[in-house]
């Protein structure tokens, strides 16, 4: 038999003014199943809580209803109180007679009547409550970080320093991401490599970080605390344990004419190469598309061709027969840090993205029209020109450089309505770098607005204008074309209202920031969602910026939205902190208000599986004693289920129930109201 206790709070005058709390207690006293009812001025105060505790013991209560404020306010408080008295905390419910009664009504009689009704309904619910135990899920205290840009590096180091094991997967042959391509960085103009390289080395040497470079995530299964990840280690054609990074092979390769991706096509590299001298791991990759031996094999030539690299390697590390290998790692959490790519103005655009190029800028075919990253490489001391800013076409030092902001960005007609956020800043930086190197050069910037919100950022752009004398023109450039030795820039100054036609020696386009190619496929493997542009969705734009909607999966850096370095680092640290928080316990504790399937009656129609927003519903085979398959039923993974109850409302027979909000409980409430 139910023995329910009802505790009615006056909340000082807050409830007492319009609801007669003692009448509520009085009325409930005669309600079937209620063995104790009392009212008190402040139920949440220490004496109030003591009252509840003592009443539970004295009356051997089997359930408690506290008629007071909103459960959002004090449900936790009173569940703790109840637990302290030795009763299961989920046998306590709150009747909201403040926010949803006393505060919204004036007529005392009416409000009191309503308070009684509300409390009765909750008493009926509590009678149908069952004790629930906190769910405990074991946690694999290792994390996977996908992407070794600055965001991923930061996350990996923070995690490893915090005591967690880390698996870092980077698809390129070295970690570092875009930051390794930058020359100097706003707003302080410190050298990018100088601050990045030590962190890369730290990653390589950290005892708790396992780095898989030149690798990709192939498959992911499992759930928070218990993911299983299959990693594809792409064939480098170099034996990782033998190679010591001496670089003899790269020297020996006769094919030295391959466009260098790291240099954004501005330099050349051999077919076997290390992207840049500080690469981590410092180990070459043989580009099978460009290697003479493999080209010969593709042509059907059976004789072994070239092999100069293998001859040069004293350690015998070159392995032409190497194949992709797979490793499986168990991790408890995943951080996505795959960064960005730059939009290209070319005619060819990735399929299905709704993007289009810039025909009026020559679809990227005009020499001496480059993008921001190419400019970084030109300005970089370790770049193809040794830091001399020269024109790609003829190597001449440009005397007038025109910078265009918002190329692609904020241009819905090209398919990119958003602001890329970093361009205003790096264009100001480019202006300075240029003026520092070419003292008599003129820098002209076309902009829509200058958005320099950030610590020291506005000062930085002002410096570009005021100290470096950059000419900022507000307006868009309508057309770019090659005219003999120069690039003609036709535009419009929207402030002065005058049309402009400039001769530029070099044009630098600040093209839009876009997510990495393949992000959607990766997101699908991880069952996280992307926005319409392909940036990973955070769980909440304000309150959960580094979590995704899938428990245990986090996001950091420019794969979530355009981000600069400080933001990417902050996100990397934040995601690491979230993961460390998760790992701080041996087991994950979850509210037990999750769905449970009645396997005996489940018809296995899997409607629940289709509607579950979290993919929490799986399938389980039911077998008889002889091991014969009887049927396949739904099964909810309590580690993934969030308890929304959509499955239950959808199940035709109601064979899946959310604990704490079962049909019995809701029915009881409906019937009592």
């Amino acid at each position, binding site marked *: 038999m139910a023995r329910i206790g009802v505790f009615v709070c006056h909340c000082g005058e807050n409830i007492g003014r319009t609801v007669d709390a003692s009448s509520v207690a009085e009325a409930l006293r005669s309600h079937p199943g209620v063995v104790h009812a009392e009212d008190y001025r402040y139920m949440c105060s220490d004496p109030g809580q003591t009252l509840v505790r003592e009443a539970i013991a004295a009356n051997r209560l089997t359930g408690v209803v506290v008629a007071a404020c909103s459960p959002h306010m004090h449900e936790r408080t009173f569940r703790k109180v109840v637990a302290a008295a030795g009763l299961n905390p989920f046998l306590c419910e709150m009747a909201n007679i403040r926010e949803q009664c006393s505060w*919204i009504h004036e007529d005392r009689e009416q409000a009191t009547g309503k308070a009684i*009704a*509300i409390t009765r*309904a909750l008493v009926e619910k509590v009678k149908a409550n069952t004790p629930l135990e906190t769910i405990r899920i074991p946690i694999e205290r290792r994390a996977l970080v996908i992407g070794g840009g600055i965001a991923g590096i930061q996350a990996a180091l923070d995690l490893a320093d915090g005591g967690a094991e880390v698996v870092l997967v980077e698809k390129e042959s070295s970690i570092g991401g875009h930051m390794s391509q930058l020359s100097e960085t706003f707003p302080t103009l410190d050298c990018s490599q100088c601050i990045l390289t030590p962190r890369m080395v730290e990653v390589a040497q950290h005892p708790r970080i396992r780095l898989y470079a030149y690798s990709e995530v192939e498959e992911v299964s499992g759930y928070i605390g218990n993911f299983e990840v299959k990693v594809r280690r792409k064939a480098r054609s170099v034996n990782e344990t033998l190679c010591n990074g001496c670089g003899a092979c790269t020297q020996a390769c006769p094919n030295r004419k391959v466009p260098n991706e790291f240099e954004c096509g501005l330099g050349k590299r051999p077919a076997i190469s290390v992207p840049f001298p500080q690469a981590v791991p410092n180990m070459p990759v043989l580009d099978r598309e460009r290697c003479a031996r493999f080209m010969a094999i593709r042509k059907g030539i059976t004789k072994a061709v070239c092999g100069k690299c293998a001859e040069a390697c004293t350690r015998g590390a070159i392995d032409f027969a190497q194949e992709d290998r797979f490793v499986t790692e168990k991790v408890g959490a995943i951080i996505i840090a795959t960064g960005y790519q730059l939009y290209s103005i070319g005619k060819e655009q990735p399929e299905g993205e709704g993007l289009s190029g810039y025909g009026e800028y020559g679809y990227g075919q005009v020499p001496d029209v480059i993008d921001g990253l190419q400019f970084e490489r030109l300005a970089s001391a370790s770049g193809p020109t040794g830091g001399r800013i020269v024109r790609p076409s003829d190597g001449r030092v440009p005397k007038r450089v025109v910078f265009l902001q918002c190329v692609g960005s904020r241009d819905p007609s090209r398919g990119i309505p958003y602001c890329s956020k970093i361009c205003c800043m790096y264009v100001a930086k480019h202006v300075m770098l240029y003026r520092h190197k070419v003292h008599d050069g003129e820098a002209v910037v076309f902009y829509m607005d200058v958005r320099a919100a950030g610590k020291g950022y506005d000062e930085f752009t002002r410096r570009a204008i005021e100290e470096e004398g950059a000419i900022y023109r507000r307006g868009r450039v309508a057309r770019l074309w090659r005219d003999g030795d120069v690039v003609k820039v036709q535009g419009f100054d929207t402030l002065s209202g005058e049309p402009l036609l400039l001769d530029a020696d070099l044009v630098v386009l600040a093209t839009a920031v876009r997510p990495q190619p393949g992000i959607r496929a990766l997101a699908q493997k991880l069952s996280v969602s992307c926005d319409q542009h392909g940036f990973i969705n955070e769980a909440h734009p304000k309150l959960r910026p580094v979590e995704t909607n899938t428990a245990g999966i986090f996001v950091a850096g420019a794969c979530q939205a355009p981000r600069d370095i400080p933001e990417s680092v902050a996100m990397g640290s934040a995601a690491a902190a979230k993961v460390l928080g998760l790992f701080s316990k041996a087991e994950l504790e979850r509210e037990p208000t999750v769905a449970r399937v009645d396997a005996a009656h489940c018809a296995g129609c899997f409607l629940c599986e289709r509607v579950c927003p979290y993919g929490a519903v799986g399938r389980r085979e039911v077998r008889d004693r002889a091991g014969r398959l009887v049927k396949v039923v739904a099964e909810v993974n309590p580690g993934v289920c969030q308890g929304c109850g*959509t499955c239950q409302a959808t199940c035709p027979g109601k064979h899946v129930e959310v604990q704490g909000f079962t049909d019995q409980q809701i029915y009881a409430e*409906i019937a009592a109201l």
Partner: protein
Amino acid sequence: MAFQPKITAFVCNWCTYTGADLAGTSRLQMAPEVRIIRLPCTGRIDPLFVIKAFERGADGVIVSGCHPADCHYNSGNYHARRRFAIFRDLLDFVGLDPRRVIFSWVSASEGGKWRDIVDSAAATIRELGPCRADTGDEGRGRLACAS
């Protein structure tokens, strides 16, 4: 005595329940006929609840939760929207006035909107009169009281 309708509101925990709390915190006065039943999500709200509420003497029902795209559980509200679109068509077809089932999106910050929903629901139901699905007979004319 004037007809005092009984209205049961099924609301999600995250948006509408919080919005209703906010209405209280803001001391917005509203019609006293509505009683709230808190559920995790509109996705949990089953037409069976509504049928049962009517059987048990409710004259009207409110179903309310997070706006599209704001669902705490991402998509529970989209499923609820489909479910109730069909359910209301069915009620209408069998001659049960669908105006007795008020569906709304009320966010955690829309205390004022919640007050308006409550007040207008009370007004609508008062006008429609009692729904006697509980007993059947006397209500028969009333249930169909529309037009």
